[in-house]
């Protein structure tokens, strides 16, 4: 048995980024449209409390709520936390306080940022008011932040129709998270071997099956795979499909063949494209070998070796 080398850890940046498009119900639509128009709306519950920010269902009774009311753009801090180093995406890029603010006329509090010179300028109970964003689109960020305000409490919740011309009916919430992906021991060994143009699988100590690409565990036996086995480079097409849809950013003419290929010595098939042969002549049992393009770190595709086709019995367990 070949002792497993301890490869240095492979790592690569991984960015997950997507613009979530979310539709709004009637209450959320009115609230966010209101922010665009510098009008702050809450919603009255059946027991007379005013929830701000408003929700469509009462968190206590689960009653559906729709009784919109306007509250003041001024309020009182109910708790706070001083954030000395703002992070990406947060409302202010200079040190600020996170605050929960109960706006005048409301019974619950809104989370946002407070622009203040330092933590000594912030306290629970302090009076604040909304600083509106210059450009407003119907989003929570239409409130740029809160700022200190020395006026007394005032402003009752007053009924509001919630009707605006051109209401906002949805938001686009972009999200981006940055990761450093590390594939772990087994896949690092596999990727390092591929860089040398060899394909390495790992054998299960229990059932003796050779996994390629290896993931470090035998899913049948639930034990670690650690014995290194070089497989291929030649292999057999076990099954395939003909792709007729051109993928974006992929410079391959359609139709082409995508196949399961059992490399010689492997206990299961991996997938790859088959080229160097008309698509309608690819068949089960076809013998193939990898084709590496210059500088590539994995085979670009597989092409026929010219050998006679493999006998069905030699690969039927690998379908």
């Amino acid at each position, binding site marked *: 048995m070949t002792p497993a080398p301890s490869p240095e850890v492979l790592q690569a940046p991984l960015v997950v980024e997507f613009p979530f498009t979310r539709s709004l119900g009637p209450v959320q639509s009115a609230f966010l449209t209101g922010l665009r128009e510098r009008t702050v709306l809450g919603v009255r519950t059946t027991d007379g409390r005013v929830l701000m920010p408003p929700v469509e269902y009462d968190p206590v009774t689960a009653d559906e709520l729709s009784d919109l009311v306007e509250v003041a753009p001024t309020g009182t801090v*109910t708790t706070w936390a001083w954030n000395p180093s703002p992070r990406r*995406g947060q409302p202010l890029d200079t040190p600020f306080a996170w605050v929960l603010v109960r706006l005048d006329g409301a019974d619950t509090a809104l989370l946002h940022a407070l622009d203040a010179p330092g933590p000594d300028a912030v306290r*629970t109970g302090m009076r604040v008011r909304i600083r509106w964003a210059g450009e407003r689109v119907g989003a929570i960020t239409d409130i740029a932040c809160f700022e200190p305000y020395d006026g007394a409490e005032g402003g009752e919740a007053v009924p509001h129709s919630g009707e605006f011309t051109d209401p906002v009916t949805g938001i686009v*919430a972009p999200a981006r998270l940055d*990761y450093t992906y590390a594939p772990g021991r087994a896949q690092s060994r596999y990727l390092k071997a591929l860089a040398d143009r060899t394909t390495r699988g790992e054998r299960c100590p229990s059932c003796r099956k050779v996994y390629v690409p290896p*993931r470090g565990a035998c899913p049948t036996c639930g034990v670690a795979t650690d014995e290194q086995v070089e497989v291929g480079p030649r292999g057999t097409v076990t099954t395939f499909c003909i792709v007729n849809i051109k993928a974006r950013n992929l410079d391959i003419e359609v139709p082409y063949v995508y196949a399961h290929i059992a490399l010689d010595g492997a206990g299961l098939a991996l997938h790859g494209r088959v080229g160097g042969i008309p698509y309608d002549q690819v068949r089960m049992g076809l013998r193939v070998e990898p084709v590496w393009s210059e500088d590539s770190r994995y085979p670009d595709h597989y092409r026929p070796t010219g050998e006679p086709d493999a006998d069905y019995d030699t690969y039927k367990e690998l379908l």
Partner: protein
Amino acid sequence: MREVAIVAFGQSDHRRDSAEVSEVEMLMPVLHEVLDAVGLRAGEIDFTCSGSSDYLAGRAFSFTMALDGVGAWPPISESHVEMDGAWALYEAWTRLLTGEAETALVYSYGKSSPGDLREVLTRQLDPYYVAPLWPDSVSLAALQAQALLDAEDAEDSGADERALAAVAARSRTAAEDNPHAQVTGSPPPEALLNEPYLVRPLRRHDCPPVGDGAAAVVLAAGDTARRLCRRPAWIRGMDHRTEAHSLGVRDLTRSPSTRLAAERAGAFEAPVDLAELHAPFTSQELILRRELGLGEGVRVNPSGGALAANPMMAAGLIRLGEAAAAIHRGAADRALAHATSGPCLQQNLVAVLEGDVL
């Protein structure tokens, strides 16, 4: 009601970064540890349930890769929660209660090291009103801590910054006896108060370490449990409750969901001698102690708790496991275990575990 017990518990060493192993490579030794402890092979377990999160891994359906570690072929009866493994244990417990299974394997894991945890956790917040502001997990906990410090009854709950530091010092000193802990040892509370704030009023020691780790338990019913374990940790009751999503609706100084879950789990029917609380922030331990009515006589988090190691999605299951392990070795007779999920103690699970009097 059918008797169900935790009969084995295992956990990884929790570390800041485990880039050299994949999730399944990190998890597998822990799975083997618990299966070996009860002398079962993976294929002999009736039901398997796991907890993890795609947002930590940065990949969709990431839990399917970890399934390789439990021997999922030929097909097994399996389920997954996108939550802490404590909730996976709850699902497995109900499965055993129905009589459909005799044994269950529960595991959970999380690697925080690939991403920026404080940013990743913002994605669990209200996507309309809160998530667009990217408030990070430490800042939200700091809002809760300040509310506690400001509360009119702060004196009654003993909540001042020194009390927070005392929780940190006690937890991390206790963790010196825990070989799996990520952070161990602490200066005295007075010295901790000289440290700078991370997000005021929280200092670094008021916050959990960020790290990678995994945990697993085996559950068994009735006589099977007695056969597999010398002193099974019987689950006498378990309940979980959630509160409103919006932080501004809740009284952040209280945790009514914890109290209600504890009541339904039977926690108040007799005193407990040990409590494992999932309180990632020092201020949260003070809130939980009050809701659970834990007096001075109760040993709280002798493992060091989440302040010593807080692997996401596993730290709650570890509380159940640590409490059970104390019963297994005779160090406790009646223990309370608590797990939390979501910002500022939004969701809470409480279990009451007991050992037979030998």
